[in-house]
């Protein structure tokens, strides 16, 4: 399992990578591994909409489960990665890069403090 140090993690297994005033979000390697083969994604937010920290951003379905993807940060949705709708398997093969889910303009950078860094997230996953 891989955890990248350049981003922060939520307890519900999403990551956010800060890029200037925006945050790019996605799901962790741990999350995709737990879900197994992901076959479907539906975005519940569109560019231009507001999303709150912890609010459902998308739902994903694997061959054995369905899960909500919560936004790890609050802000305005700038982009969603529509290519995932045709190739949801990217969430399994490349969760940190090609399978980014959205770009959100941060409302409040302080929210990032409530998230875990890579080390903390690794210990959190081990404890489960």
């Amino acid at each position, binding site marked *: 399992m891989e955890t990248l140090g350049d981003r922060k993690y939520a307890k519900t297994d999403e990551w956010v990578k800060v890029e200037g005033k925006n945050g790019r979000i996605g799901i962790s390697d741990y999350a995709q591994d737990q879900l197994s083969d992901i076959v*479907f994604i539906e975005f519940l937010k569109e560019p231009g909409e507001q999303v709150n920290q912890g609010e459902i951003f998308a739902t994903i*379905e694997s061959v054995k489960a*369905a899960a909500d993807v919560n936004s790890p940060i609050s802000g305005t949705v700038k982009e969603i990665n529509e290519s995932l709708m045709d190739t949801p398997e990217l969430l399994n093969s490349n969760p940190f890069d090609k399978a980014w889910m959205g770009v959100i303009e941060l409302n409040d950078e302080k929210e990032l403090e409530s998230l875990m860094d890579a080390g903390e997230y690794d210990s959190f996953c081990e404890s489960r």
Partner: protein
Amino acid sequence: MYIPHTDIERQQMLDVIGVKTLEELFRDVPEEYRNPNLNLPVGQSEMEVLDQMRLLAEANNSTDDLISFLGAGAYDHFVPSAVDMLLKRGDFFSAYTPYQPEISQGTLQAIFEYQTLISNLTGMEISNASHYDGATAAAETAITAYYHFKKKRKTVVVSPFIHPDYIQVLRTYLQAIEDIQILIPDVNSPDEFLDVTPNYLNDDTALLLFQYPDFLGNLYDYTTLIEQLHQAGGLAASIVYPQVLGIMKSPAAMDADFIVGEAQSLGLPLNFGGPYIGFFTTKKEFIRKISGRIVGETIDADNKRGYVLTLTAREQHIRREKATSNICTNQGLNALAVAIYLSLLGKTGMNDVSTICYQKAHYLATQISSLKGFSIVNKAPFFNEFVIECPLDAADVNKRMAGIGILAGFDLSQFDVNRKNQLLIAVTEKSTRESMDYYVNALQEVLNA
């Protein structure tokens, strides 16, 4: 009485939860309620009970004893003997829901064939494994549309000419979803419904629900209305009486997004009102949005064909409290009956049955309309069901006909006080020329009396 637990096992369970005796376990129940006197008659032998049940059963009149022109959502079609024969095979009859594909291939394949046949009949790409009945299948289209639009479109426009019971079930299903609105255009006739409804379609419309033929038997072409609905961004759902599809245009050809209905008429007897079976079909693009389950065909590790439950991700056993549908089950045995019935009839058989129903109904309508004082209410074409206007209360007609062994039809005043002289009459292939002539003569006599 068979109680599977031994005394030792019961004592072990009591020990685990920390009470000494069974009496102690029930101490919170007030003493006078613990073993109430149930005031039951003395025990009877099996022979006596069977006698008693037979007497009770004989007090019922079934359509085998009467001449029936009752329809209104449940139809007395002929069921070939092979349906019941195959249905009662123990392998099917006692099978549990097929969660374990490795021991459920027979049931799964039967449902898969059912889905294929229903898809072929309706002309739709996707059929689920079935619902409880037509009304619940119809209600699921509203829920599907609402969640498809991510709760952003909140209005379900419903034709006032769908089965009134279906509207009740729809209200019951939707009451748990707070912000969804049911809008029934205030119109007096199906023609007016087609004219006025476009004014109600806008960016809040999630679904338009109509029935084909409508509750009064009318066949309308909804193509233009659906086009206008799609322009407004909403989805179209048609409740369909499946027999009509043997000879008439399917709402699939009108670009309906969902076709649902009651499949009791495809191989199930009236069963005194249930169990029935709802069919639910849609376009491929909504396959991940629909309720219920779908059986899919696949290959196993040895490259052999096999069947599994699939695409159940909206259901409560996977999504828990976030489920958008709570109907995980289907009518497995009834789906099998439908599959056997449709296989027996085939394309030409289905066409034959529909043609016979159509022709017989039009014969009866012609005969009744030639009676002085009676007229046909339908202005549009109809299939096998139509409304007559009687010269006296429909309830009266029904009562007098029942006296001579005829179920004359459905008294429409039960749902609409303005229709107190109107009877909804259904004809199937089981209605004979003799029974129809007998009925017409009886109506004539009612008039003369």
